[in-house]
């Protein structure tokens, strides 16, 4: 972690991440206006009263942007955690036991890697009726396969190490070995991968919200783009409505992705010799 923060790129990504986390926590407090309040200033450009202009019902775009950070970040992180837990469990159990368990898990991973993720998420979200929980579950359940793959590869080398051998000779159970000896050693890799999944999950939440499958109760960057698009903001030239939320998504995903990438360089043994 310290090595990542020592680089300029590391500092940049960490700074952006910290800023967005701050907005996610305090966004509702620092928002200048009620993000849902309507007014007669309909689709007005940026002004002193509305720094980023207004929506089609006269709400303040900046306030929506600040409040919307929370959903993107909460869904992104929660879905990534679910994905990490499933991926780690399947990778460790499959890699450790090998044989038919491994082969079955491998086919499952194969399937999840092949099936187009967005159409799959769309189908699941539509069938379950969208809410925040459904969004998190759907994204988490469809994005763990890559993590499973990478963790499995790591476990295959870990289980041949002397300390696992020794624990087994001392009569430790499989569960004990996986929990105490394998998991802690695979943890840095799992963490690096999870950060990368956060980036994927933020994009996924935005895409689902854009397709009208977001949580109808809350404002998110994806739902802002959807609202703006439905209200005809692009053809009205109302860039202040649709450009900022997408820019926030891009910046956040960029920072998270860069951070995960730098971290992965540190912990993935296969990436270390390469430049």
């Amino acid at each position: 972690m310290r090595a990542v923060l020592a680089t300029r790129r590391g500092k940049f990504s960490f700074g952006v991440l910290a800023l967005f986390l701050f907005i996610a926590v305090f966004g509702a407090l620092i928002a200048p206006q009620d993000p849902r309040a309507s007014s007669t200033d309909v689709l007005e450009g940026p002004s002193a009263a509305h720094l980023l202009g207004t929506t089609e019902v006269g709400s303040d775009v900046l306030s929506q942007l600040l409040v919307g950070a929370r959903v993107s970040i909460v869904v992104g992180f929660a879905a990534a955690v679910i994905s990490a837990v499933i991926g780690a469990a399947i990778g460790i159990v499959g890699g450790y036991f090998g044989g038919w368990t491994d082969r079955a898990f491998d086919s499952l991973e194969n399937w999840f890697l092949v099936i187009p993720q967005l159409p799959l998420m769309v189908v699941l979200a539509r069938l379950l009726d969208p809410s925040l929980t459904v969004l998190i579950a759907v994204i988490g359940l469809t994005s763990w396969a890559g993590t499973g793959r990478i963790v499995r590869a790591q476990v295959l080398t870990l289980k041949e190490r002397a300390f696992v051998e020794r624990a087994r000779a001392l009569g430790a159970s499989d569960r004990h070995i996986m929990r105490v000896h394998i998991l802690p050693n695979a943890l840095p890799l799992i963490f690096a991968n999870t950060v990368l999944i956060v980036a994927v999950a933020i994009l996924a939440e935005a895409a689902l919200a854009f397709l009208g499958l977001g949580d109808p109760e809350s404002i998110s960057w994806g739902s802002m783009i959807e609202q703006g698009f439905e209200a005809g903001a692009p053809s009205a030239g109302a860039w202040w409505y649709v450009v900022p939320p997408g820019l926030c998504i891009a910046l956040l995903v960029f920072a998270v992705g860069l951070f995960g990438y730098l971290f992965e360089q540190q912990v993935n043994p296969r990436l270390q010799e390469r430049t």
Partner: protein
Amino acid sequence: MNTRWLAGKALTAFLTLIFVLVFNFFLFRVMGDPTSQLARLPRATPEEIRQLQAYYGLDKPLVGQFADYVADTATADLGISQKTRRPVWTEIGEALPWTLLLVGTGTLLAMVIGTWLGIVAATRRGTRTDDGLLGFSLFTYASPEYWIGIILILLFAVAIPIFPAGLQETPGSQLTGLDRVLDIGEHLVLPATAMTLMLLGQYFVIMRSSMVDVLTEDFVTVKRATGLPWARVVRGHAVPNALLPLVTLSAIQFGIVMGGAVTIETIFSWPGLGELSYQAINDKDFPVLQGTFLVFSVAVILLNFLADCLYFFLDPRVQAP
């Protein structure tokens, strides 16, 4: 030739296909219970619902329903759209060419431009050009593709109105022949650009790192030592060797491409499978949604298998017994 490797890939593709059918069936029959949808019909008496259930074969045991489903799917019977009352297969058949046109153009452009930029960056490693290209491609990679589409509309259809902001051809125009082709081409520019920008970054990054690897290999140094001009070393020897990882990448990308088709077609009202899916999401038209999902999945599985075949013929290492 070691055809066992290829046979293994074919078997995997086939099993995945079977799994897709089973999954698709259970997803829509069990989670989206059609009986409960029938019960939502206005003024339907229990007797009528039972008749409808018998009509749709929903009174049979699950195994029987599954056999029906497989037989129907195999004969391209995907049911009837709940909204338009037309066969789902007809709707998909009308939408498919438009998606192929958009996805094909976008993928091809991304592949060519991304690869070329990757070569440029790798041969100028560490320079400003390299940094700039890397930053640009990572940013397009992080941007939602439908947002890129909106920006393209704002720039090139509203601010400077040179391209149409949506649809596949001018509505009501009775153009034929070359005029129609040009009209469609004009409408294709913005959505295809959005698709290209969405996919470009991956090709760029992979090609760049693959080229960087190849350029440090001994045979490149040897070729250089024989006095061969640098440009010819790059073009004739380094590039062909660096291209292989792109085959694997394009296979991984197919799934992402399908997702992009859904959102980009929505933004540009492009009448393909993605737009059809979007309408189905809004109308809760489950037969159509099930149909497009099936087509997307089958397309990705087949394209993956094709990429494997291509890999087999390109890389002598997997052919070795």
